[in-house]
Each structure stands twice: as C-alpha cells, then as structure tokens.
C-alpha cells in the first residue's frame, strides 16, 4: 500500500470522526435541511466529473462524464436552494437580537 493511499485513509478516518461529532450536535429540528445540505456538499463529486470530461480521454468518458456533471450540478444548485428556503422559514417566537 503506497503512502498516498495510507494518507487518504487517514483523511477518511479523521473526516468521519469530525462528521460524527459535528452532526451529533445538529438539533433534530433541522434534520431535513441537514440532509439536503449534506447532499449538496456531497455533489462536490462534480469536481471529479469535470476533470474526467476536460481530459477528453475517450468518447465514453466524455459522454458519461457530461451526464455526471449534469446530475451533480443539479444537486448542488437544487440542494443549496432548498436548504436555504427551508432555513428561512425557521423563526423564533422570542424577539431577535439586533
């Protein structure tokens, strides 16, 4: 196993622990927007698809990659949009701090 892979495994392990700790603190109130937000962040996979299509290595890769960009971009745009729409609706009955 090369050093790079090992580093990647470390990154994965640490990110998973951070994920557990951070997400445990999210109030159940916001579980639906949490899911749409993580879904939008997950669509960072678009980065991989962009490089794949840009490299233009084979026709198959270009076609599949373009569809992948469409799918991921729609998640980015739609995911952030709906998360923000949901969060805007959450209002407190206590007076807001200025």
């Amino acid at each position, binding site marked *: *196993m090369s050093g790079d892979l090992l580093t990647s495994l470390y990154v994965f392990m640490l990110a998973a622990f951070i994920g557990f700790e951070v997400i445990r603190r999210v109030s159940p109130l916001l579980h639906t927007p949490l899911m749409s937000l993580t879904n939008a962040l997950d669509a960072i996979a678009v*980065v991989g698809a962009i490089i794949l299509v840009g490299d233009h290595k084979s026709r198959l890769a270009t076609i599949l990659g373009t569809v992948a960009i469409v799918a991921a971009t729609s998640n980015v745009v739609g995911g952030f949009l709906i998360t923000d729409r949901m969060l805007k609706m959450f209002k407190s009955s206590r007076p807001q701090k200025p």
Partner: protein
Amino acid sequence: MPSTNTIIEIIYLVAAALFILSLKWMSSPTTARHGVWAGELGMLLAVGGTLLHHGIVDYRWIAIGLVLGSIIGVPLGMVQMTAVPQRTALSHAFGALCVTLVGTSEFYLRAPNVPRFMMAVLSMEVILGSLTFTGSLMAAGKLEEFLPQRPITYKSQNLVNLSVLAVAIGVAAYLVIHPERTALFPVILGVPLLFGVLMIVPIGGADMPTVISLLNSYAGLSAAAMGFVLDSKLLIIAGALDGASGFILSVNMSKAMNRSFSNVLFGAFGQEQAAVAGGKETRAVRSATPEEAAAILAAANKVVIVPGYGMAVAQAQHKVRELYDALTKRGVDVKFGIHPVAGRMPGHMNVLLAEADIPYDKLLDMDEINGEFPQTDVALVIGANDVTNPAARTDPSSPIFGMPILDVDKARTVMVIKRGMSAGFAGIDNPLFYLDKTLMLFGDAKGFAGDIVRELGGGHG
C-alpha cells in the same frame, strides 16, 4: 511562485474547511443559514479551482453539463415543502448516478491494468453508487406514489436479496484479483442496480425515514470511495461527512422505531407483517364535535399538539397554525411534540410547521416533551397513530413493544383527529383511542382543525 496544482490543492483545502464549518453551523437554527453560505462558497471555490486544472483541454462539454445541471437544479430546489422527502430521495439518486458514471469511466480508462487497491475502491464506488441510484429512484417513486406505497413481501425475500448482493460482491472480489477480466465489470454495475430495486420493494411508507437516511449514508460512502479512486482528499472528506450524517440519522431513526441496527444495515426493514390479532372487538369510543373540542381547548392552560404524517397528507399545517394562533391569543400555552419518525423523513414535521410560521422554539422533540405530558391539559393528536400507542410501553405482545412513544396518554385529556377507526400503518390497534380520557374527533384533519378555529373565534369573540 507556486504551481497551478499547488494553488488548486490549497483551494480544495479551504473548501474542505468551509464544508466542515457549514455542518457545524447547522447545529442551531440561528446560525444555520451561515452554514448554507459557507457550503456555497466552498463549492464555488472548489469548482472554480478545478476549472484551472492543466489537464482540461476542452471546456465545451463541461459548460454544457454545468448549464444543463443548473437548469434542472432550480426547479428541484423550488418544490413544495410537502414534496421534500421525494425530492431528497431523487437527489440521492442523482448523486449516486454521478459517482457511478465517473467510476465506470475510470475503470475503462484504466483497464486492464488496475492496481488491486484501486480496483477494490472502484468496486465499492460502483456497487454502492448503482444500488443507491435505483434504490433512491424506487424510494422517490413510492413517496411520489408512482409506485404502490404498501410493502410488497414474499417468501425468503431476505435470502434472495442477500444472494443478489453476494453475487455482486463475489464478482467484485474476483475482479480485484483478476482486473484484466474486464468483461465482468458490467456485472458489478448491473447486479447492484437490481439489488437497489429489490431492497426497496418490501419498504412501506412508515419505514421511509430510516431508508432515506440509509441511502443518504450509502451515497456519501460511494462518493468517498470515488475520492480514493481519484485521489481527491476533498471528495473523501465530503463523502465521509455525508456518510457519517446519513449513518447518524439512520441510527436515530432505527432507535426511534425500536429496530436493531443490523436490521437497518441489511435493509431488512420490511415490516414483519405480524398477523393482526384476529377478531377485532368493537370497543366503545367517545367522540366529540368541534364545538365540544373547542370548549375544552379554550379552557385548557397547556396544550400539546402531536402531528403525524396524516397532517402532511391533509395539508393541514396552515389550519393547525390558525389553531395555534387562536389558542395562544387566549393565553393557552401551546407546544408541539414531534416524534423522530413522524412523517416520511427525519425532521419532516418540523419543516412543515416552520413553513406554516410556527416558531421553532415551540417544536419539541420526543425527549423534551415527554416529561411535560403529565402537566398537560389537552394532548391533541393530528394524523399520528403508532407513535402515540401506549401498547408500546405496556403490552409485551404488541409488535411495536419497546418503541419509544410520545406519552400522550399521560395528559389529562387526549383528543385524536382521525378519519375513522382504521388501524395505523403497522396494522396495530391503538388502546389510546379507548381510554376514558380520550375524545375521538372524526373527520379530515384540515377540515376539523378549521372547524375548531371557527368555534374558538366565534364563541367568545
């Protein structure tokens, strides 16, 4: 002068930090919108940075993909709040589709000389991606009611499903040892597609919160696997965060339904269709009219409203808000008690009630509200059933025994708005309805709530 690649890597590093901050800010409704902005900024940086990449020789298809994706994304971001569960399932499908397609391309670009570890993560990426793709499409179809919502079960279903999955994993293992057998690759693509469908067939509506969370977790893990294939730390981090989030939510949901965790992991959440205790006795219930209900509510000091999926189906959340306003105006303390699995996805009820402008500090989860029921004058159940069933606490023979419930039966008076006396999703009779303190309010949730509001407004001015 640092090279372009170094700059791109630094941009990715910043984006990863922004993603973590984004989730951190989701911890409270007061900071949550900053979380969205941090996420958006991170995403913008990452995509912008990627476009600087040296390897990119042709921008045409990238541009077409980005524009087309945005055009599809906007309507998906503007759906009605009641359609959020199916939208979420659909977006899991899109995410998984992206991962699967990239994985497939990467395999054919590298074949036949794929290193073993690479082949292992590639298989994981493609298997998780394709089963999440069809599984999420099936879930979205069931939620949108294109497909029948009731669970479809048959003999040895779990055995069939696990065998199908075993075939995919077996072939993947063989490919890891013999990556030159490229003809086998379509198997680890196609068989999980089939498994995704089979996995959702036995799922009923009430299991959806668990299933959506699980698919969320799978989508995240497949993206993390893709990060290993492409050696992208940013993707590994985003995938791990999403995977952890889905995992936590599915554990929460399975706890709230009193299902074991292995039960959840292996997708065996199809209802154990416990034969409903035959020979249903017809016991007497007390029912009340809107006038009577309004009079009792107006005389109360403290009211807890317990909403369920029935409220969403009847689109009654705005009428419920009017009821909340009418009672609050009379000085009644009104709160909402929300069970973790109420609705079709985690947090579903909160979003609908927030949309109806009910302040979020009045929305309490099960652990917060349960201690308050003994001091509650009226518990008003709207469109919820199994999550209020006291048999879960008291009757070891009940199929839902042990499931944590909202203790509405501890309130002084219980009112249940319900269409008729039919059993809940799990097909279990609810002893709550026959208690002396329970009043059944028969009717449509929206209509009945409206009638109560009219009585409250008209009666005393």
